[in-house]
């Protein structure tokens, strides 16, 4: 703080204070701050408006007609929890997300550990493939899997829940790999070596030392895969067969193209709440598992930076 006091010229009796303030190199960048807040408002307010309209009493999603729970549960046919199509979509969304999460995260974690330690050509090649699946636009993978399941594997995997799961897992596999590898880089190999110096067998060193150290990253991966899967739309849309296999995201998309009621807002809000609950649980887990290791700073920041 001392340099500010030295650097600021002594207040002159005359002179334009505004010009001096504008020229001062130590002033807060007010314009930039205003721009940042305008950006944040622009990015978040529309979503808040959409959430508010899920409680609209009328059919409109752009004109406010009073508060009600009509589109959540009060309407016996068209509300989120009573419309049979939306109800089955909720179940389908949750089913797909939970199964994808339970398969993709363990597979990806094992892969990350192996790639981190196994420096050979095939390992590098496999890792390249994994990262490539991360950057490939989803429409390419979605259409490719659609063509795979409608041609080569037509008799083995018909379109529907099974195909959707296989596609989602493929698309999500890279997230746990990237997150767990980042954590492995910060852990280093020393804990394992110490465990083995103390007499642990290689497998024990992994299951009893390395794996507990990886729990934060693994829980973060669970949350991210769950949240990303429940929001996924391109892959599941191409790989869905009947109306019954369309999850919430696909319903929202088709409703938004036709004539949506605030029930769509309620469906989207429901997805949002599910995602945030998952993230909240993951942050709590993260805090719990890193309780002895934090160097200061909030766990939220660390989690966000994952």
């Amino acid at each position, binding site marked *: 703080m001392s340099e500010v006091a030295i650097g600021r010229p002594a207040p002159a009796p005359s002179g334009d204070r505004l010009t001096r303030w504008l020229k001062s190199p130590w002033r807060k960048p007010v314009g930039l701050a205003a721009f940042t807040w305008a950006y944040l408002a*622009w990015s978040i307010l529309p979503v808040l408006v959409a959430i508010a309209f899920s409680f609209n009493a009328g059919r409109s999603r*752009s004109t406010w007609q009073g508060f009600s729970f009509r589109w959540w549960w009060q309407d016996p046919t068209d509300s989120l929890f009573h419309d049979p199509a939306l109800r089955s979509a909720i179940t389908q969304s949750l089913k797909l997300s939970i199964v994808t999460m339970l398969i993709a995260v363990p597979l990806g974690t094992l892969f990350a550990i192996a790639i981190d330690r*196994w420096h050979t050509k095939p390992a590098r090649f496999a890792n390249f493939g994994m990262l490539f699946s991360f950057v*490939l636009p989803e429409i390419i993978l979605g259409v490719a899997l659609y063509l795979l399941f409608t041609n080569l594997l037509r008799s083995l995997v018909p379109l529907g829940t099974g195909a959707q799961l296989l596609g989602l897992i493929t698309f999500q596999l890279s997230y746990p790999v990237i997150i767990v590898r980042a954590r492995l880089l910060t852990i280093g190999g020393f804990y394992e070596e110490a465990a083995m110096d103390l007499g642990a067998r290689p497998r024990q060193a992994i299951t009893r030392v390395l794996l507990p150290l990886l729990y934060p990253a693994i829980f973060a991966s669970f949350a991210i895969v769950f949240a990303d899967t429940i929001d996924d739309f391109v892959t599941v849309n191409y790989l869905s067969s009947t109306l019954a296999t369309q999850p919430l995201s696909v319903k929202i998309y088709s409703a938004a193209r036709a004539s949506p009621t605030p029930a769509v807002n309620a469906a989207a809000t429901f997805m949002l709440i599910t995602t945030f609950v998952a993230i909240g649980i993951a942050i709590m887990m993260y805090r719990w598992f890193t309780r002895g290791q934090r160097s200061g700073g909030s766990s939220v920041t660390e989690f966000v930076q994952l």
Partner: protein
Amino acid sequence: MASAPTTTTPPAEPPVKQSKRAAKKAAREESGAWYPRWYWPSLASPSALWLAIFFILPLYVVVSVAFGTSDPIFGAPLPVYEPWYWSGSSFQQVIKRFVGPASFWQPSLIRTLVFVAIASLICVVVGFLVAYYVARYGGKRKTLYLVLLVAPFWISYLMRIFAWQSLLQPNGYVNDFLRIIHVAPTPIDWLSGKPVTVILSLVYGYIPYMILPIYGGIDRMNVSWLEASKDLGANPFRTFFRVTIPVSKQAILAGAVIVSLPMFGDYYTNNLMGSSRTSMYGNLIDKTITQQGQGPRAGSLVLILMVLLLIPMLYYLRSTRRAAEGVE
């Protein structure tokens, strides 16, 4: 760092010792004294096998469909899996629709390039300013800023676009606002295929992916470099263009690639916010894939997109690998 750390940190090890240890470790790993030879491959193989079947194989099927034919009666694609029987006729037809006299898909291609270029540029400028402010002046509120910046990640893309679709209705809040401030007395039909709407929607959808990498880049920047530049007599503009930009260039380019890649394949934004007048490359794929007898064309479109995006994808992978090595 003004405040001295109260905890006793171990003194940094001399670099010679560290490299020795690393060399030792590498030698041990190579000799395989700690783990059996089959150990790591067996952990990696389930995922590797998965990728081979559900990632590499589908891409091969795309090629087979693109160079195959379609059933003359039912219209289903007849993929050809043997490269020596491949026929390029469908692929040639697709190419002819992009270049030449009957190129009625060309507008979509050009539109996609222009839209993605403008949207990415806006993402870079806006993303840089916001990331710069949060990284350098965030202060105590940094966590709050970061949470707000990350929040859009967890809100479904569809919901965010749907929110704007509602706001931009003829009787929506945007038109109400413009009427109140006397900019537009009559409602503007934003959703009738206006390029502005589609471009801004793309920006809105993908900009969160831009801000975080740039934030990381600026956050790592050493403030003393800026001070040094100032001390050496550079004015703020010179400092910005000669220090800040070069230092964060890598992050900006990586961010630009990571936002533009999904934009190239985007079809849902235009389907919700635009019309056929603003249709993009992704819309071509989405339309042809569901049409009878168009399978080989859809395959060709996907193949062309993949080839076009190969260079930016490889660039991104290389730059992230470099960044990871730099951290190590």
